[in-house]
């Protein structure tokens, strides 16, 4: 682990060794590793999206022969729902938001030549890739993929006799555990790199907000994942060795898993939210040509949110059974956590106020994030209050709320970041017009999926049900029409992504050449070439930092931006 500066230099010299395709597979360059994470995440998103298509089709047209899939059996339905959730959270949101952009942006934005542990970084991606292969493979083993929901509650998940997917369940658990190990290695790298490898002159408040956000998210991940790892070991033993940690028959306790899971699971929401908020903050300042309103407010708010997020997890057990007095405590903490997040949204709006706003594609995504996430946040208040939650629990209201938080985070946030940093990553500009069409289609379709699901949820539609024809009060024509609307919108949403993929790959090879700093931004990654060379800057021209990242429209200056590396 120890890495002296000579070893570091050697690492780089050594890095020029492998040529051709091996250069990309075996690289320790943080930019390549970031892209590996990004492309793997995009590939997994296609799988997760396809799963959503299959089970949405089953819900809209029960028992139909679905194009490209066939008839969905009840067991397959469970596996599809479970793995859609697991893949989208653990193999799309986490790798793309944190690992891909964390790896790509942190060294560039703090003026370092690479991460401090480049080989550990490569190992992190390799373990992640292995976990992705394992979760995909688990779909094809006898019994099929795990069908016990992404939260994997015992006793259903612990006993093959209940879940009927013994091998799938164990592979799922191992895949998740491996994925956590990968992010653990990545997170250590992010934190140490930020602390020890900043450019000369870069003080704590000169660090771009997105870097802070990714690093705070990594710390949050590190502190919350331990208990879930302990739970995973216990669950693995229950599944394979016949222990009874979560089996009340042998003195175990199934609710215990829920506590261990959600002690991680709720902070996890903020682990992915904070980086997305960071992207939005960067984009909003650049495209409103204004200083971020209240840098320190945002930073300390993020820290406060991170701390508070450790004290809300039991809002997931309001119905499973906790002491009502504890339910009150967790209601209060849960409602409290909406305050700092609202504050960040206000900061973003205040930054826009009287700025000279340009509605570029990344800016559209950033603004859509604010609008859509707001709906997710507000509906969360209904669920955080234990009284209301008892009615809404396990309905499509929860599902719609969840997607109104995670879709803005994982999908809108990712598109914001990809369209913002694409010119830097690949040295080409993306097509604006296609970008706009893709934006409007995606955001509109998204709302047409989940607004009907809010209505269905308030009407009492329970989730995790294969065919609503078995429930006469939920099988009415009116409710079925809403399901069909949601499914149609899902298909539109997925088809719209073809536009994005076309734009992405076409621009990658044929796009207009990107200048070093197409958006006239201040942060350091724009001071090097597009794409940056190995080592990010020429060794004799590493940047020095003279000011904070958001000096836009400073009075008395000709330019409306002031790069961090320009001497006064």
């Amino acid at each position, binding site marked *: *682990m120890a890495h*002296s500066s000579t070893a570091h230099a050697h690492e780089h010299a050594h890095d020029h060794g492998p040529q051709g395709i091996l250069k990309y597979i075996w690289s320790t360059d943080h930019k390549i590793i970031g892209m590996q994470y990004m492309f793997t995440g995009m590939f997994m998103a296609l799988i997760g999206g396809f799963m959503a298509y299959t089970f949405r089709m089953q819900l809209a047209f029960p028992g139909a022969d679905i194009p490209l899939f066939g008839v969905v059996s009840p067991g397959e339905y469970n596996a599809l729902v479970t793995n859609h959730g697991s893949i989208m959270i653990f193999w799309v949101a986490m790798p793309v938001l944190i690992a891909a952009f964390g790896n790509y942006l942190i060294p560039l934005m703090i003026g370092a030549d690479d991460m401090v542990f480049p080989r550990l970084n490569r190992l992190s991606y390799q373990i992640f890739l292995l976990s992705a292969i394992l979760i995909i493979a688990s779909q094809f083993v006898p019994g099929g993929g795990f069908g016990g929901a992404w939260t994997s509650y015992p006793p259903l998940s612990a006993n093959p006799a209940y879940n009927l997917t013994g091998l799938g369940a164990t592979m799922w658990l191992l895949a998740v555990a491996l994925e956590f190990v990968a992010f653990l290695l990545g997170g*250590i790298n992010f934190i140490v790199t930020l602390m020890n490898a900043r450019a000369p*002159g870069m003080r704590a408040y000169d660090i771009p907000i997105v870097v802070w956000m990714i690093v705070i998210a990594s710390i949050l991940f590190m502190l919350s994942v331990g208990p879930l790892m302990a739970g995973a070991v216990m669950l693995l*033993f229950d599944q394979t060795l016949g222990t009874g940690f979560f089996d009340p028959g042998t003195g175990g*306790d199934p609710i215990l898993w829920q506590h261990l899971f959600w002690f991680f699971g709720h902070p996890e929401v903020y682990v992915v939210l904070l980086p997305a908020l960071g992207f939005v903050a960067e984009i909003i300042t650049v495209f409103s040509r204004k200083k971020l309103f209240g840098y320190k407010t945002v930073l300390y708010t993020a820290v406060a949110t991170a701390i508070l997020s450790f004290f809300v997890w039991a809002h997931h057990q309001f119905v499973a059974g906790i002491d009502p007095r504890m339910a009150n405590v967790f209601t209060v903490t849960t409602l409290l956590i909406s305050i700092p997040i609202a504050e960040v949204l206000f900061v973003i709006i205040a930054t826009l106020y009287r700025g000279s706003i340009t509605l570029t594609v990344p800016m559209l995504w950033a603004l859509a994030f604010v609008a859509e996430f707001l709906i997710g946040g507000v509906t969360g208040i209904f669920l955080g209050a234990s009284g209301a939650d008892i009615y809404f629990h396990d309905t499509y209201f929860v599902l719609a709320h969840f997607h109104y938080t995670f879709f803005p985070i994982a999908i809108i946030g990712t598109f914001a970041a990809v369209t913002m940093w694409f010119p830097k990553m690949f040295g080409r500009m993306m097509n604006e017009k296609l970008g706009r069409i893709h934006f409007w289609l995606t955001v509109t379709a998204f709302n047409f999926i989940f607004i009907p699901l809010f209505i269905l949820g308030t009407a009492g539609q329970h989730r995790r049900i294969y065919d609503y024809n078995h429930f006469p009060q939920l099988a009415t024509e009116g409710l079925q029409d809403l399901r069909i609307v949601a499914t149609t919108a899902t298909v539109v949403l997925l088809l719209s992504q073809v536009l994005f993929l076309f734009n992405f790959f076409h621009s990658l090879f044929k796009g207009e050449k990107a200048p070093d700093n197409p958006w006239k931004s201040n942060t350091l990654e724009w001071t090097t070439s597009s794409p940056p060379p190995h080592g990010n800057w020429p060794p004799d021209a590493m940047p020095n930092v003279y000011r904070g990242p958001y000096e836009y429209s400073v*009075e008395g200056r000709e330019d409306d931006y002031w790069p961090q590396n320009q001497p006064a």
Partner: protein
Amino acid sequence: MTEGQVVELRPAPVARPKIMPDGVMGMLIFVFTEVMFFAGFISAFSVVRARADGVWPPPGQPTLPFEQTAMNTTLLLASGAVTWSAWLAWRRQTGKAATRLLVAIVLGAGFVALQGREWVALLAQGLTLTSSSLGSFFYVIVGAHGLHALAAISALAWSWVKLRKGELPASAFATVQVFWYFVVLIWPFIYFQVYR
């Protein structure tokens, strides 16, 4: 709040010294995660034990040898202390570092060996992984700690070999120590929470 603010004049940027060696900081972060990992086990165990309403150990299960394990605990703590003294000797270049480190390794290995003997005895008394929730938690928690101890002792042994050759970088030695002190210092918590 920000508009119209006078831009502050700064001294020329200088390279900052590292807060601490990269390896040590990375290991410290890893150790925090590990502490939470064991905290997860121990809190789960406490919940299950509290649910048993005083019927503990579960019927038909042996009581854990609290007094006897005090011996193992002492060995482990002593090993930690000797490692520290080896570090001090290494820093002062007194030439005693290698011997002390070897003593620390032997003491640590002694701890693992005594734990192993204890497991054999408990298995004979009917405490197995699946015999009760006590057995499940005991073997998983103590086993997880034992695996950590073995990993740390291997790292100490590697340090000893390098140290004797004079090839041990200070940051690597410090990093290995951080992990070993974690293994040593978390043990008393496990001991008091699980064995009593």
